[in-house]
């Protein structure tokens, strides 16, 4: 492998690592799974370094790869690679931190409603809220048109709002107006 390609890959790796680590940690229940997703994503990126798009697009491309890796991983429950032990250990320490949402009853209820959403709704909302992507960027990660993503996102938000309202969830009120804003999207 020549040095230019290697340098290019390293730049993409360093710029994208934390994003992909966050993506994996937010979707995997164990550090072993998250380590697998991160490692496999970047292994694929190395094999396909010639396909890596330039600049900011590389991040979206990596999200797309990570999404496929995660889907495959869930299907076949890959055995964990011993050679990722070090990475796994590092992630285990990150996982050991208290997870703020679990310490709060209200957030626990919101989390249950969120987990019960259809997979596609959950992933769309997560790409906006967790990865900070807009409709155009999501379209590039998932494929499809920006407009289609906007419509699907609108529906996903509506279903989530209704499910929250149906579950009677409120959100750390200090006053009654701090309730979940179910009224806004109606």
């Amino acid at each position, binding site marked *: 492998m020549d040095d230019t390609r290697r340098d290019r890959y390293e730049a993409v790796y360093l710029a994208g690592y934390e994003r992909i680590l*966050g993506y994996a940690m937010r979707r995997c229940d164990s550090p072993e799974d998250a380590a697998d997703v991160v490692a496999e994503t970047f292994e694929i990126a190395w094999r396909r370094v010639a396909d890596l798009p330039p600049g900011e697009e590389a991040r979206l491309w990596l999200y797309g790869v990570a999404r496929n890796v995660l889907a495959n991983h869930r299907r076949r429950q890959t055995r964990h690679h011993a050679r*990722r032990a070090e990475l796994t250990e590092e992630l285990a*320490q990150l996982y050991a931190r208290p997870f703020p949402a679990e310490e709060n009853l209200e957030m626990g209820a919101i989390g249950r409603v969120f987990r019960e959403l259809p997979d596609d709704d959950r992933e769309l909302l997560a790409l906006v809220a967790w990865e900070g992507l807009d409709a155009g960027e999501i379209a590039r990660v998932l494929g499809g048109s920006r407009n289609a993503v906007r419509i699907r996102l609108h529906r996903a938000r509506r279903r989530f709002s209704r499910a929250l309202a*149906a579950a009677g969830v409120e959100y750390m009120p200090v006053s009654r107006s701090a309730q979940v804003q179910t009224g806004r999207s109606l």
Partner: protein
Amino acid sequence: MSGTEELVGRLARVHDRELAGQASATGARALLDSIVSGPGEAPALRRRAWGARVAVGTAIAGTLVAAVAFGPGVLRGGGATSYANSALDISLEGGRYVARITDPFADHRKYTEAFQAVGLDIRLRPVPVSPGAAGTILGRMITMRGAPDPGPVEPAGPRIGGLALTMDTSPPGCRPGRDDGCVMVMRIPAEFTGTVDVRLGRPARAGEEYADFDRAMAPGEMFAGVRLGDGRPVAEIAAEARRRGLTTVFSLVRTDPAGGGLSFEPLPAGRVGAGWTVWNAWQVKAGVIRLLVTPDRLKRNPFHNGSAPPPGS
């Protein structure tokens, strides 16, 4: 980002900003090395090189974790203990950071920047509200990494190391951004390592929807004085809205008999009968009121949940 996604954001196990620096952590560097060293290298050689790294990696991972776990507390060591910009000033007083917010409607990045400078993760987010709620706090969410002091939850805020995390105004009861000389004061124990997210009302721009939609019947708001606690006929309340020069929109209230939860579905005015019952009213945006209705009269107001009084009662 909508309110929905703000909630989803709170569910994240970790935020990307908390992973800053992970790309240069040992595990990440080792993964990069193992990938770019490429196929064809003798496996035995690689395994030996890897084994040598593990010991170092473990030690460094331990250090890193301490930094992550204690977050701002540790990082604060070399940072500033006071900070000021045009929107607020922060200083360390008796074990607590005291933030005096003089301009509650400033660009929220100014607050973030100031709190970050002293190592605190405190976010003030202005949200659009009716003119009457400008300058008020709509909600706050505190997440703790360490444990708060044991004991009953205090209404003023949690205690960390014996000191309370509080938010007040000075003078008490004044409205920041509206009353002259009114300052919002946050006191955050220096040992606090969690996050605080405050939703602060700012005057809505033309056409912007209100975040304080459920205050329609509060004093000074567009439906002040209207009483809906026992339900009122649509004809009567729609006439009241017309008298006040408001546009009326409707939502059907559905109750879930099992859980008691409510859901709402917008309804065109043409499908709402004059004899239906109005149980609540939300202010949507300037000049628009939403009436929450059911075709039949229910035994009691569905918005009465046992602890809060029914709306407008």
